Structures are given as C-alpha cells and as structure tokens.
C-alpha cells in the first residue's frame, strides 16, 4: 500500500467518506420520496455540499456546539445525529429526533451539540455566540460553529454577531456556505463585497475562503481556525464555496440557473467524486473498500426509511406536551 499523503489516517479518511456518502444517500433518497408525495412540508437538500459539513465536523466533539440552517441535514449527520431519528423526524413520527414536532427544518440533538436546524435565516449566529460564551465561562475549551448561507449572511443578526464575537473574543467560527444562490437570487448580486474575507476583516477577525467541494481544503482551513478559537484566539470566518445539486427546496424548477449549469457542476464539482478519486489515486483506499461503504450506507438509509414509515405518529396528548418544562 502506498504511503498516505493525507493529513488523516485511513480510518479517519474512511469515516469522512462514510459521512459524506451518508449525507448524499440520505438526501437523494429524500429527493425521490418527496417526489412520490411521501414527505410532508418543506425540504432543503444538502447534496453537493457534503465536504463542508464533514471537513468541519471532523474537528469537533459532542461538547462543541453547532447552530445550523434550513439546509441542516448534512450538519446533523456530520455532527453525529442518529440517521434513524432524523428520518423519522422528517416523516413526522413520534420516534423522530424532535418527536415529530419539528420536522426537517428544526432537527436538533442537544446531546450531540447540535442546537437545531433553523427556519429563520441568521438566527443561529447569536445563539452560537451564546454557546461560545457558555463554553468560555465554564472554561471547557468548547467552540461554537454557526453556518449561514450566502443569502443569510446579509441578515442583521449575522452581522451583529460577527461584531459581538469579536469584541467578546468568543470561540466562534462563522461558516459561510456560499453556494452562489439564495433561493433564486445570485450571491454576486445580493452580497455587496467580493469576498467574505473583506467582511471578516472589517469586523476585526481573520477570514479564509476555501473550495468547499474539496474535503481536504475545508478540513485543513477549519482545523486551524477551530484550534485557534479553542486556544482563546477568538472568532474567525470560513467561507466555503460550493454547489447545491438540487433546487432551493424540493419542487423548485431552478429556471434561474444557466443552461447546462447543473450538469456542469455535477460533472466537475461533485465533492464525493473528488474525494474518492483522490483516495483511490493515492492508493490509500481501494475502490472496493469505498464500494463496501456505499453498500453499508445504502442499507442504513433503506432501514431508516423503512423504520420511519413503520413508526407511530404522535397522538393527541402530544399536542399540548412540552410547551413549558412542566405544563
């Protein structure tokens, strides 16, 4: 076997691949089942963006907190939220991560440090400042990561949080997931500066831009700024340039894209293909080993869907439960 040129050992590399593949399979399955009419509500898929969540979350433990977005499935999976509980939640079942009360846009698992997907753009940024403040007060070396899309990066809450984190020197990493679009509107039009690094600089913190389809680029850049935040060095911003493979939400015809754009990004910017090619070419992991992972993941998702469909729906008493701690 060739010498490993990567910053991770083989087990870790397989773990990264497995995480990305799990996200992809999860999302592609939802895409199919949504079209069949099996899934209620709004569903925003993370397919195409897997390298970002995975490259960042490889540096985190359950004591580190993340605040996610409406496009949260990938963040959940990479943070270790149970796939069966997620699927059941999306199907509105009582076995779901939020007992069916939250749905796709609100999956949370506080025990895993996953503070929730969010239906309100920019809402995660102040919350993660609070998580980082709590870690700082406790002195437990925990960090907080908030994800925000290029569109939501224009929210006042996000911009205020950059400043707050800087003046309080909080262990926060602001991740801008720049997929070029906010719904149908182009990032180039909606965001007033050319680079998020300029925004970070303006708020007195370092900013880094990486190719978010390159797992290793994300992994290395995130590693450095997360370490810095953990060591008390303060907040930073990480911009990941990436692509989304499906519509803004399921049902979006995507007519705002240029002709051939989707085919082009799928052909040249598929982060899973990019990662697996590099692993195989380097001779570190064999194609057959990756295929074995694919089969396991496939079985896992299949089982999650089966279990979700078979699980009970919440019942009338659940409607009034959990409004307050004791109700």
């Amino acid at each position: 076997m060739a010498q490993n040129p990567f910053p991770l050992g083989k087990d870790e590399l397989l773990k990264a691949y497995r995480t990305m593949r799990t996200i992809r399979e999860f999302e592609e399955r939802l895409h199919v089942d949504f079209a069949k009419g099996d899934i209620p509500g709004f569903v925003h898929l993370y397919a195409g963006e897997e390298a970002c969540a995975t490259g960042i979350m490889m540096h985190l433990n359950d004591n580190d907190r993340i605040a996610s977005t409406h496009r949260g499935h990938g963040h959940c999976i990479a943070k270790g939220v149970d796939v069966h509980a997620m699927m059941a939640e999306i199907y509105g079942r009582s076995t779901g991560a939020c007992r069916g009360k939250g749905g796709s846009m609100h999956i949370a698992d506080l025990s895993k440090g996953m503070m929730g997907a969010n239906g309100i753009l920019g809402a995660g940024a102040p919350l993660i400042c609070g998580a980082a403040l709590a870690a700082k007060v406790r002195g437990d070396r925990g960090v907080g990561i908030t994800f925000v899309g290029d569109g939501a990066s224009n929210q006042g809450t996000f911009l205020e949080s950059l400043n707050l984190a800087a003046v309080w020197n909080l262990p926060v990493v602001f991740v801008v997931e720049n997929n070029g679009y906010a719904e149908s509107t182009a990032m180039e039009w909606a965001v007033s500066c050319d680079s998020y690094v300029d925004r970070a600089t303006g708020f007195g913190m370092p900013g880094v831009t990486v190719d978010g389809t390159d797992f290793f680029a994300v992994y290395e850049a995130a590693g450095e700024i997360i370490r810095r935040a953990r060591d008390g060095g303060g907040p930073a911003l990480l911009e990941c340039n990436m692509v989304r493979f499906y519509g803004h939400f399921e049902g979006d015809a995507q007519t705002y894209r240029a002709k051939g754009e989707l085919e082009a990004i799928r052909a040249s910017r598929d982060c899973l293909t990019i990662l697996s090619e590099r692993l195989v070419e380097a001779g570190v992991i064999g194609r057959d080993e990756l295929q074995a992972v694919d089969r396991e993941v496939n079985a896992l998702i299949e089982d999650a869907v089966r279990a979700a469909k078979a699980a009970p729906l919440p019942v009338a008493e659940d409607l009034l439960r959990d409004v307050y701690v004791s109700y």
Partner: protein
Amino acid sequence: MSRKISMKQAINEALDLEMRRDPTVIVMGEDIVGGTGAQGEDDAWGGVLGVTKGLYAKHGDRLMDTPLSESAYIGAAIGAAACGLRPVAELMFLDFMGVCFDQIFNQAAKFRYMFGGKAETPVVIRGMVGAGFRAAAQHSQMLTPLFTHIPGLKVVCPSNAYDAKGLLIQSIRDNDPVIFCEHKNLYGLECEVPAESYAIPFGEANVLRDGDDVTIVSYGLTVHRAMEAAAALAKDGTEAEVIDLRTLSPIDWDTIVESVERTGRLVVVDEAHPRCNLATDIAAFVGQNAFGALKAGIQMVTAPHTPVPFSPSLEDLYVPSADSIASAVRRTLSPKGASPRIAA
C-alpha cells in the same frame, strides 16, 4: 366581467392594477421577481409560491428583489412611504416579522401620532400566515393579534379571492401602514372575481350567512370551517349567522353587536393562540357592550397554546375544525351555566 380565479391570482391582479394606476406604487421582497443576478430566466420565481409571477414582465424595475435583510428592506419600504411612495413589501412568511418588527411597530406604526399628525406612511406589508401547510413552527403562525395590538397599524386578513383583491387595492390606497395577512392554505381557492378594479372599505365585515340562533365570528381560513359548521348545524335546525371580519384593525364592532343582539349567542373562532387574541378581544367587547342580549356564555374556539407542530397528525388537530366550532355552538345552546370549563 367576472371570472373564477384563485386568491393568489387575485392578489397578483390587485398589484398589477394599482401599479398601472399609480406610478408611486413599487413592490419589493425576497425573490418576488427571482433570478436577479443569475444567468437563467428573468422573473424566475415570482415569489416563493408564485404570487407575483408575471408582474416583472409588465412593470420591470418597479418590482425589486431584495437581499435577505428584512430589517433593512422593510424599513426602507417604510421610509420610502414616509417620503411619498406607496411601497408594497412582501415579507414572505409573516413569521419573519421577528427580525424586522422594530421598523414596523416602533417606526411605521408611530409616525402619525408621535409626529403630531403630520406624517403619512402608506406602506403595505404583505405575507403568508396560518397553519396546515406542514411548514412547522416558524412558518405557520397566525400572529394577527400581535399586529392588532399596536395602535397605528391596520390589519387585514381576507378569506377569499374576491375580498383579497378589493382589500389589497384598498390597502395600497390607504394612507396608514397595513399588515396584509394571506392564509397560505387559501391561495388556491377560487371564486368569482371581477376583472376590473374595486376597493373594499376597511372596517366592514361580511355577513356570509344569515341566522337567528347564534352568531359565529371569524376571519381567514377558519371562516370556511365556520361555514361548514353552520351547514352541519342547519341539519339539526340551528341557524347560525356567520360573520367574516375581513379587517381586524379597524374592526366592525357594529355588525358583531347587532348580530348578537338578535341571536343572543356568540361563538368567536380564531386560528391564533388562545390568550389575548381576536376571540378574547371580541368576547370582551360583546360582554361589555351587549351583555343584556346574551342568552348563554360566549364560546371561543382557537388554536391551542402551543407552537405549530410539524407532524401532520398533530397539525390537523391544531387548527380549529368545523366539528369543534359546531360543538362550541351546541354549548351555547345548552342551559346557561351548564357548559364545562374549556382549558385554554
């Protein structure tokens, strides 16, 4: 000429007609045109559910996509209104009010009074309200009572396409800030709507059904549930009068009180949470002003005191149903004092 169109089309038509009539009308919001700055089709979305689709082709740059910055663009619409434009700003889901409420309730709502009657702020903020769309806790709320609580805001919530068109035209012409609440589960509902322009005055409720036994008051989606309940009750010989408020601020107290004075019984139905809502407001007003006419305790049917649950099995229990309205009516028909205490 009149034809059947949906509430979505009626809203689109109202915007189109007012933009034609008045060059100071501009329309803005997130993806209300769609595809701005992108290489594909112009007018790619026409709003998240296509309500403004096609208006860009007719009115061009008077329709403006905005960055995802509600405080800034809703505030800018308000500022422009104070300086002579008549902006209609879409706030996609009115749940997003949370991020821009200051501009609405501390700014727009107060200018007129705080500046000694010297300001006018003819802005319309329109967006979706209501549950039943499987859109979960942050995209499904009926926040109308928050808006009616604020002096200076006018609050409109149509139950059908005809009213939506006339009330939106009136909202645009009105010189005060108007919160225009569109129930997302009514968008597809069709009825006869004249092609020409017409305005429905504020503060005039619509009596949808006459009856002498009980008055049912509601607005928005639950008007339809009230009508179903009334039809079911009629089979048992109970004739309900059904009043659709149409505007919540101003509110048509006269029509409500006159009806209750005739029927002696009142059921108020509100999709909002049970505390401090339109139902409690109307019940209190009638209790204070028409107590002598009441033959039974006033009944309120509302959503429960919970966020909107995602799971269809729970969301279906959340919005007041025709059955729950009919049961409330039956409680008003039972001997005084016999009705059980209803938990909020």
